[in-house]
């Protein structure tokens, strides 16, 4: 290499190193190690951002979302289980912070409500069909008038 390109290469290496370290500092809070990535991503997609309440903390740009992602990541790296992290969040923000409401006595109706409606609808459907087919049989038999 000529002395000119060596100097340039050296400068580029320095710039690159600077960028990488500062980028790492900026993103360290949000970037999980490769083996944790799937778990981290799927977990933060289940936590509601309370500032932008229709977003999870994975997608939200709110500073609080960033802070919560940091907390989740730090706890995962410290070896805490998903349940422990959930307990931590719920203790501070309540059940609403979870996208999947827990199955508890006060949420029972929320969970089984739709099934109840379907069951109720089925019952009504069957009754109506039976009733209608009762009338229909009479109509089909000729001469019963």
């Amino acid at each position: 290499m000529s002395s000119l390109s060596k100097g340039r290469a050296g400068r580029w290496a320095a710039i690159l190193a600077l960028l990488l370290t500062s980028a790492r500092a900026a993103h360290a809070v949000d970037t999980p190690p490769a083996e944790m990535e799937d778990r981290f991503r799927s977990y933060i997609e289940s936590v509601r951002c309370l500032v932008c309440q229709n977003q999870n903390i994975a997608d939200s740009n709110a500073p609080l979302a960033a802070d919560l992602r940091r907390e989740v990541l730090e706890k995962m790296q410290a070896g805490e289980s998903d349940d422990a992290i959930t307990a931590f969040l719920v203790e501070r923000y309540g059940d609403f912070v979870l996208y999947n409401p827990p199955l508890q006595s006060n949420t029972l109706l929320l969970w089984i409500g739709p099934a109840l409606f379907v069951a109720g609808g089925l019952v009504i459907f069957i009754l109506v069909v039976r009733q209608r087919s009762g009338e229909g049989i009479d109509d089909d038999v000729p001469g019963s008038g």
Partner: protein
Amino acid sequence: MTDSQEKAEEQAQRGPNWLLFIIPVTLFVVLVAFFVRGLSLNPRYVPSPLIGKPAPAFSLPALSDPETILTERLLSGQPTLLNVWATWCSGCREEHDFLLQLARTAGVPIYGLNWKDDAEAARSWLKQLGNPYQAVAFDGEGRVAIDWGVYGAPETFLIGADGKVLYKHLAPLTAEVWEREFVPLLSEARGGAR
């Protein structure tokens, strides 16, 4: 078969009809009742799970002097207020004058939690606008705010003499809110004496 006899038979066959009509209508009315109630609730006002529990512990530098460490012990011994604020929060500017008034007249110490703010900006803000706080803890990283379940500013907590969280108000504090929500709890916390 006569007309009336036919009609009677039809009526007998149509027996359960009114029931099949009533059930869906009732369900619908019940659903509508739930929806109307739900629409009148504000999802922004997430109820705080901290009510009735001891104030979350913290250990933060004071805004005025980073060498001084402030802890949750500040908040017990008498009913106190913890107000979460920041210079970037417009609602905080709105309630600031009322907080100054409260600090002068209400006889309740107000402590500040400066949330994710620039310390220098926060100090000048208070110098410029007046300082209603006995002390302000500086939570630059927002970790303490998370422990308190903070998700917006301003938020104001009422803490009892025993150090337990009695109430949390979201949105700027006003005279009306103070009278309606804090005063009854405060007099209860003081054992009836005002």
